[in-house]
């Protein structure tokens, strides 16, 4: 800011210089954005994998990555808003497995139509989110404990209902399954409808976080809940709604996955919660709340999903995957904390 003053008036009038200065300022704000580090990492990752493996950028591999990315991606979007509000949810993986179990059990036992089953699964998941939010905000139990308990309860219900066996999902080919995850091809790529839903959710939730009044409340609730409450922000209500959103979007992701892989396994989604939280924090959202970025989360999702895919392609044993994920998380956290400190000191 200051250096624009230092230069004399004569040079300020020169349009090319002013243009250059605006460019420099733009560049600086891009570099200091929390999404910049993850973005560079993503580019490096793509370049390395492309150089090391000829199949990485092939149409079939891109189709592969695009098939499974939206499912964890959707959960991450919900988690981003929740974490910005200062809470997180460990039960997302369980809900991911639970919702399709409910939907397909209702259908396979001829209790009701597939559509009704879908609605029931979504309503029950919303209820799970509500209970999470209610216990965190009204009983003031830390979200770590509440959602850890909920993780076990929900997973237990899914296992109990099914006796541990997967539910059939291939017998139904309804309009609903086509809308959720129907396949179509686009210039040589096989694309699932879930990619479009993921893009749509990204746009909507990105808008909510940065452009809407609700987004201001979400950030304030996570940044300084007491201050926000004193200004009349309904902190508890905001958090409860975000718990519901996270649960419902996880349920939807689970349903999507069950249709795509043609099976609803009561164990699916196990340990997704940690991978999702990793994606969100790698993208630049603060674990402590107050600051969140949807774009960063999308980048974080791509970093981890492409890593899982690329590592196998370049011939690293699949079992070594976690080493890389862990290293990325640690590296990114170090970067974010360094940027944060520099930001504080530099002003």
């Amino acid at each position, binding site marked *: *800011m200051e250096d624009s003053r230092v230069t004399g008036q004569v040079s300020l009038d020169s349009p090319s210089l002013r243009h250059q200065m605006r460019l420099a300022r733009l560049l600086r704000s891009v570099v200091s954005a929390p999404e910049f580090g993850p973005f560079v990492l993503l580019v490096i990752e793509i370049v390395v994998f492309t150089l090391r493996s000829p199949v990485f950028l092939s149409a079939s591999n891109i189709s592969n990555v695009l098939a499974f990315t939206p499912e964890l991606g959707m959960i991450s979007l919900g988690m981003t808003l929740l974490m910005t509000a200062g809470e997180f949810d460990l039960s997302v993986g369980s809900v991911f497995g639970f919702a399709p179990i409910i939907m397909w059990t209702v259908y396979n036992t001829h209790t009701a139509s597939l559509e009704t089953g879908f609605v029931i699964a979504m309503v029950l998941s919303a209820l799970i989110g509500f209970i999470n939010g209610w216990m965190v905000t009204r009983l003031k139990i830390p979200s770590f404990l509440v959602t850890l308990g909920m993780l076990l309860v929900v997973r237990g219900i899914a296992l109990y209902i099914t006796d541990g066996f997967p539910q059939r999902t291939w017998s139904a080919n309804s309009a609903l399954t086509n809308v959720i995850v129907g396949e179509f091809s686009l210039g040589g790529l096989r694309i699932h409808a879930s990619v479009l839903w993921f893009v749509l959710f990204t746009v909507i939730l990105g808008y*909510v976080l940065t*452009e*809407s*009044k*609700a*987004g*201001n*409340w979400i*950030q*304030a609730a*996570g*940044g*300084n809940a*007491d*201050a*926000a*409450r*004193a*200004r*009349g*922000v309904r902190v508890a209500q905001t958090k409860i709604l975000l718990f519901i959103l996270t649960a419902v979007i996880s349920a939807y992701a689970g349903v999507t996955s069950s249709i795509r892989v043609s099976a609803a396994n009561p164990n699916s989604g196990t340990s997704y919660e940690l991978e999702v939280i990793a994606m969100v924090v790698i993208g630049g959202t*603060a674990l402590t709340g*107050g*600051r969140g970025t949807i774009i960063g989360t999308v980048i974080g999702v791509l970093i981890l999903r492409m890593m899982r895919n690329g590592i196998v392609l370049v011939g690293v044993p699949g079992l070594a995957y976690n080493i890389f994920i862990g290293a990325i998380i640690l590296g990114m956290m170090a970067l974010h904390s360094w940027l944060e400190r520099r*930001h*504080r000191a530099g*002003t």
Partner: protein
Amino acid sequence: MADELVRMERINKFFGRVQALNDVTLSVRKNEIIGLLGDNGAGKSTLIKILSGALRPDSGEIYIHGAKVKMRNTSDAIARGIETIYQDSALVTQLSVARNLFLGREPVKGPRVFDRLDQQAMNEAARQLLKQVGITKDIPSTTPISALSGGERQAVAIARAMHFESELIILDEPTNNLGVEETQGVLRFVRNARDSGHSCIFIAHNIYHVFQVVNRIVIMRRGKKVADDIDPKQTTIEAVERIITGMALAPL
């Protein structure tokens, strides 16, 4: 009194068996800056917390413009025009100046369903306000609070109180931990606030600061009000200090 803004009548407050406030009555007139003084534990903060809705009295009444009111929480107080600014002013440090100024009362534009913040209006109003409270440094409205100094943060909090037409601004130790220049800034804001028609209650340990800006000094000791109508122009700092410590009786 016609120009009485707030009146706290015979307020009592116990914490367990300790009586923090003993029949305290306090009134604030329009366009008046009151200095509330007292040693640690005198009950200043308790009294202020009751007025700002953070605590509830065990007995006693609060009147605003002569009408009896009940304040259940801080938003009730803010809605009635009583704004409290604490030392680490209640701002969300991650959010920008503009977003903090309008927190909880954000202007929205476009159709209601889109819930869209009118960021342009927010930033513009924030820019004007910062100028009004005397921040001459060029701080963009989109700067996060975390990048501001202590004095600048106080200024933002005061600007917020002024913008939303608070009639009474309570400043609880606003000059603690501030540098010399920042302290001068805060004192200037207080004078500005009076000139633009706000009343203030100013709490500070530093009597010198209080003497510089207030119209009237109220002194508390051990939960009781011991002096109410001290004119800083008619008395000395030493005399006030003696009353605070209990070495002299108040000229009530």
